[in-house]
């Protein structure tokens, strides 16, 4: 599997996600935001975490309009896989690839902590290595992760099963305490209509090693590698 990680000025978790992809058996190349084409043979586009353009405007607003994003939109339109993590999720929302928006956290502060997520479905290219309802232990690190959408959008996301992950406690129950950024319906990640684009606030790429906290994040990257391998076969 060949992954193209888009690097914007201010991206800062591109190395972390590259490590996770390589560990799962993928090839990862970095692509500069000012380029206009993805490398030939790109299977997966990753928009990494960070503070693109300093997040001085709305998070992801400038990056969502970067040169490379036309190629990313075209890749998605062809059914290609796109993963946006943290700032990448914000960029996906700003670029029109996913609905809704990420607002300031409910407590108005940046928060970095370990976080349980419930995997809402396991029949996608991103989550096949998990089982539905599994609780995974990852981490969050964001100031603007409060997922917000209008009523119709929310109803559609829920109705069509497009919620990928929800914030929950260790038992898999969604509570106010476990949804610390205040996201609507405790949404931590969502899919596009065709399930080929995933945006999520938490960082699975930082939970790939027992020594540094755990390995629950590996499943996502392995799922992606397997899904591409299955397509090729």
């Amino acid at each position, binding site marked *: 599997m060949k992954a193209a990680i888009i690097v914007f*000025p201010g991206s*800062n978790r591109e190395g972390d996600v590259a490590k996770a992809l390589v560990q799962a058996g993928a090839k990862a190349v970095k692509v500069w935001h000012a380029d206009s084409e993805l490398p030939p043979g790109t299977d997966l586009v990753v928009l990494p975490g960070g503070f693109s353009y*300093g997040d001085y405007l709305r998070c992801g607003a400038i990056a969502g309009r970067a040169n490379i994003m036309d190629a990313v939109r075209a890749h998605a339109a062809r059914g290609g896989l796109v993963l946006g993590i943290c700032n990448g999720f914000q960029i996906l929302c700003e670029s029109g690839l996913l609905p809704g928006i990420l607002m300031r956290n409910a407590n108005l*502060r*940046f928060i*970095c*902590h370990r976080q349980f997520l419930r995997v809402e479905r396991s029949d996608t290219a991103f989550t096949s290595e998990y089982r539905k309802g599994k609780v995974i232990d990852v981490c969050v690190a964001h100031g603007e992760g409060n997922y917000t959408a209008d009523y119709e959008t929310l109803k559609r996301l829920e109705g069509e099963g497009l919620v990928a992950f929800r914030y929950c406690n260790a038992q898999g129950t969604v509570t106010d305490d476990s949804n610390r950024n205040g996201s609507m319906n405790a949404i931590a990640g969502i899919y596009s209509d065709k399930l080929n684009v995933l945006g999520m606030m938490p960082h699975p790429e930082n939970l790939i090693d027992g*020594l*540094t*906290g755990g390995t629950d994040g590996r499943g996502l990257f392995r799922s992606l590698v397997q899904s591409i391998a299955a397509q090729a076969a």
Partner: protein
Amino acid sequence: MIRNDTPITPELVKEHGLKPDEYERLCALIGREPTLTELGIVSAMWNEHCSYKSSRLHLKNLPTEAPWVIQGPGENAGIIDIGDGLACAFKMESHNHPSFIEPYQGATTGVGGILRDVFTMGARPIAALNALRFGEPAHPKTRHLVAGVVAGVGGYGNSFGVPTVGGQFGFHPRYNGNILVNAMAVGLVKKDEIFYAAAAGVGNPIVYLGSKTGRDGIHGATMASAEFDDKSEEKRPTVQVGDPFAEKLLLEACLELMQSDSVIAIQDMGAAGLTCSAVEMGAKGNLGVELDLDKVPCREEGMSAYEMMLSESQERMLMVLKPEKEKEAEAIFRKWGLDFAVIGFTTDTLRFVVKHKGAVMADLPIKELGDEAPLYDRPHVPTPKKPQISPESVIAPIPNREALLKLVASPDQCSKRWVWEQYDHLILGNTVQSPGGDAAVVRIQEGPKGLALTSDVTPRYCEADPVEGGKQAVAEAWRNITASGGTPLAITDNLNFGNPERSEAMGQLVGCLEGIGEACRALSFPVVSGNVSLYNETNGEGILPTPTIGGVGLLEDVTRNASVAFKRGQDIVLLIGETTGWLGQSIYLSEICGRVEGAPPSVDLAGEKRNGDFVRELIRSGEVDTVHDCSDGGVALAVAEMAMAGNIGMVFSTPPETLPLHALLFGEDQARYVVSVPAETAPSILERAKRAGVPAFRIGATGGGALHLPKEPPISVAELKQAHEDWLPSYMAGQSS
């Protein structure tokens, strides 16, 4: 615009922070009256912050060498060899005065400055730490300052992309008018790819890189060298504004440029901006420097030479480049969207010449700007020794379990989760031990090595006895690294003191330095970088003497580290080190008995080394994975923290009746560790300790959900945790003080 030929009056000299005799020294040096720009340049070079004129004499007694030291004090950061062709660059620096005036921006620029110091040497930052001291919780400004500083520290590091892995956080009324914000950065660099500030070669281009120059921060370094008064708020315009996004670009651009073999010398523009950086590059390389200010990228219209030379706009660098590489270098900077301008060149004149609009605005001897800076042997008096308090003389006013519950929820000992959750401590994926333990542990690249990082000082000990307090600060840093499994290698010191022109405050500085030096020598723990922040006084009241020690240690195999959390039930809990029940200057005495008295615990450096080496070997051999050092609050607090971190209780054995129980539990004797080991390995460890001359005692066993202090009803770990976790969030929400 202020004219360069403005007559230099005594008032103008005073406004620049120069004493009359210092001004005379300047006139004698150049053989005439200075121009306004020259006065500005010299005031920047000769203030306390840049010249260390009060501390230099005493700093030179600190040990700075060891076989593993590559670069000691005097560069942007200290550098130590960590093997495998790699080196670790690190430094700590204060940003106290600006943070009191404008907490968010003061803190961000403090973090930005120290990160820049590290990557200026070619090192990619891999971790940040800090030490924050605020006034008493009840003071009306404290909440606002805490909120702003913490958000600022996080705001910069999070965006820049470095994990903030550790630090200190405390309150005391003596910081009411003068908080402390000390920031530390740690980076990795290949041993043969280190960059230095010394310029080389005549006629080489001097290049300005990074953000544009504005009017912010003019006289920031002078502000940092003066006492505060009620008008300090008016100094807000001298506080710089941090831009972590620009710094991240600057980092990537600089590291990319360094790989292209274009850079001869590099210096960041920190305190006193263009002035300090250009002078240091020239002076260190025995070269002159000529600058043409018409070429400096400016953010604002009509800036004078004086303003450009003193601006402390952030995220700027100065480099001397190989002339043939200029185009290549420019392309890299343009790619990152940063300014790149050749603003001058090196000369063989040993003069520092500044031109603006065709006119010479300053022409000064470059070496003398640094070498001839005033040097003072300020009068200093030692702090009178305080009597030792016997454990028997302290009567326990409340039961020990109540004392412990009170201590875990006290402002200084409560959980700092509210703080460190605002810092991204997980980015880069190498954080092995997060904030909240002893030293933080980060893996080095793909391993197997790791670094143990800590920042420590106990200001109340330094106040009571500067020499012992100085020793203790170093010893505690050494101990925290040891408790995590690291071999302590070197320190950076951030010396925060009051007005050196007061002999008592100067005595505190001298005393602490004596203690620091003694401990560093005894523990082979040299000082490789540092910063001095004096004049931390407001309306004549000084802060507690606070020499913050940032320590770095190495783990050869990072998988063999120890953390504070109890990990199993039925472990035997051992106390390593001698307990005399030392309650003088303890938090038990102050928080529970309301007495701030006595001599602080004495530091036996030989015992410290013996006990620490023993514990480290247990971790390194893989026998022990659970260790906590004993510091504030003694054994009781150490054990409580271990129980809370692991959600496992502990039952104390019945102790010998040689000491009052509360002294045994809460005494702050140094050189001690609590170690939790599987029952089957305990006898062998006790036996080996005996042979090594290391005091070691069985004090209890882990298990259950409660902490059973001797002779008292148990406290559930849940109750402890609630008390421990609640105080800071409710205080910040305005619900307690």
